């Protein structure tokens, strides 16, 4: 049976009041090496009336560049839905492989907006950078301000003691490098030595960390408004400066020399501090920015490993290591003042 047919059968089982359930216009969305993402139109009849809705399918690939629990991603989206942090509505989570070969979830599509960073440096988006930057780091501050327990996320996310935030994250990504690197990485290994020798202070509070909050992972419009924060697959509890530092990884300046390609770093920090009510200690933020260079390299290396081992031979798995591994080394040197 086609993927459309299998999807329709699955959704029929979850909408007992629906009849004539049809899935069409199924199309894979480019990019997204950690999940296969499709958009489709769902049509059905209910109480004699025809209905339809634009939906998104996020399905695990055979092998991914990051190994994450889709339940945590699903619950993170669900926790923030309806809050000041705009996210798509989650509908169904399926953790078994039977219905569509791999675990997946289905969400409402937020239609009519863009995510591609390259568009931001073309008309008509050029004028929206200050507004977009304000929205971007205000929303990140709102994520940091949110109470993980009140959101219900302490039930699904692994707890961490404040003093252990840095060592848990660094240990995890260093292990990924140990297991997956296909060639020695002297720059990243030097960065890891520095990070271990100069640990940051504990966070002001434990917060939800999005884990991949950067330009490219939210939906924006020409006025600089953000309509959806996406890609929560690496969400966890930890130090909110981790999220701020990920966005300052120079790889995410897209060659523009500014935070997220939008504004100078100090402006982004000021917006975030105002929104979060927290202070971004410069030394701690430096540590988390350098850490995120290590994390980024671990992700690109994992992508290469998934391809080399044959688990996923999609070209999207080659692009990160080929296009970003050396850039990540250069970003690391830049952060360390060696470039």
């Amino acid at each position, binding site marked *: 049976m086609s993927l459309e047919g299998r999807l329709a059968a699955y959704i029929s089982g979850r909408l007992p009041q629906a009849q004539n359930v049809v899935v069409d216009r199924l199309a894979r969305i*480019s990019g997204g090496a950690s999940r296969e993402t499709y958009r489709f139109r769902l049509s059905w009849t209910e109480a004699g009336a025809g209905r339809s809705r634009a939906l998104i399918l996020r399905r695990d690939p055979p092998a991914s560049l990051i190994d994450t629990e889709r339940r945590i991603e699903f619950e993170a989206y669900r926790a923030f839905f309806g809050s000041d942090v705009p996210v798509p509505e989650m509908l169904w989570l399926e953790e078994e492989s039977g219905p569509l070969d791999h675990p997946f979830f289905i969400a409402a599509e937020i239609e009519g907006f863009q995510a591609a960073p390259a568009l931001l440096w073309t008309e008509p988006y050029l004028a929206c950078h200050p507004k977009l930057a304000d929205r971007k780091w205000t929303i990140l501050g709102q994520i940091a301000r949110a109470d993980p327990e009140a959101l219900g996320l302490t039930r699904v996310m692994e707890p961490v003691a404040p003093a252990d935030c840095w060592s848990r994250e660094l240990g995890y990504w260093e292990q990924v490098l140990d297991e997956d690197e296909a*060639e020695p990485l002297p720059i990243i290994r030097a960065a890891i030595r520095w990070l271990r020798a100069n640990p940051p202070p504990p966070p002001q509070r434990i917060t939800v960390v999005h884990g991949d909050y950067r330009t490219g992972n939210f939906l924006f419009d020409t006025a600089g408004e953000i309509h959806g924060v996406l890609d929560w697959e690496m969400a966890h509890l930890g130090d909110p400066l981790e999220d701020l530092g990920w966005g300052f990884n120079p790889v995410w300046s897209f*060659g523009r020399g500014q935070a997220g390609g939008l504004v100078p770093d100090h402006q982004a920090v000021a917006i975030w501090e105002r929104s979060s009510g927290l202070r971004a200690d410069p030394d701690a933020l430096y540590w988390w920015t350098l850490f995120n260079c290590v994390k980024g390299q671990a992700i690109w290396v994992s992508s290469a490993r998934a391809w080399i081992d044959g688990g996923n031979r999609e*070209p999207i798995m080659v692009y990160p290591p*080929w296009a970003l591994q050396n850039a990540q*080394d*250069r970003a690391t*040197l830049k952060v360390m003042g060696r470039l």
Partner: protein
Amino acid sequence: MKPNVSDVLMELSALVARNAAPDIPPTDRAGALGLTAALLAIAGRRWDDAAHNLVHENRELRKLLGLSGQDDDLRIPALTGENARLRAMLINRHAEIEGKDQQLEDAIWAELAASTVRRLTPGSPV
């Protein structure tokens, strides 16, 4: 560059052939061929310089490590293997001398920075 260029080119060849079939959905075809084009551009640039850069880099690494020798086998897999061996040794040497030999440390950092210039890809964000 990992995965190896030759292995990726073989896979891309098969991918292009599959996308030549008339029944491939246009969005799938566009995604596959767009990425293929980007990867071919990177491969073309890096492949042309690969042997020259590896021989040069291996020579610099041997200098930093105080080793003699040269690359006699100029095939890319042999040069890449030797490069990996030398870079692994450099990691250990770098860790040993940090804070103890500023001159060598500076020389190592300078070579590491130079190595990223040799490995630059078109459109690199940094």
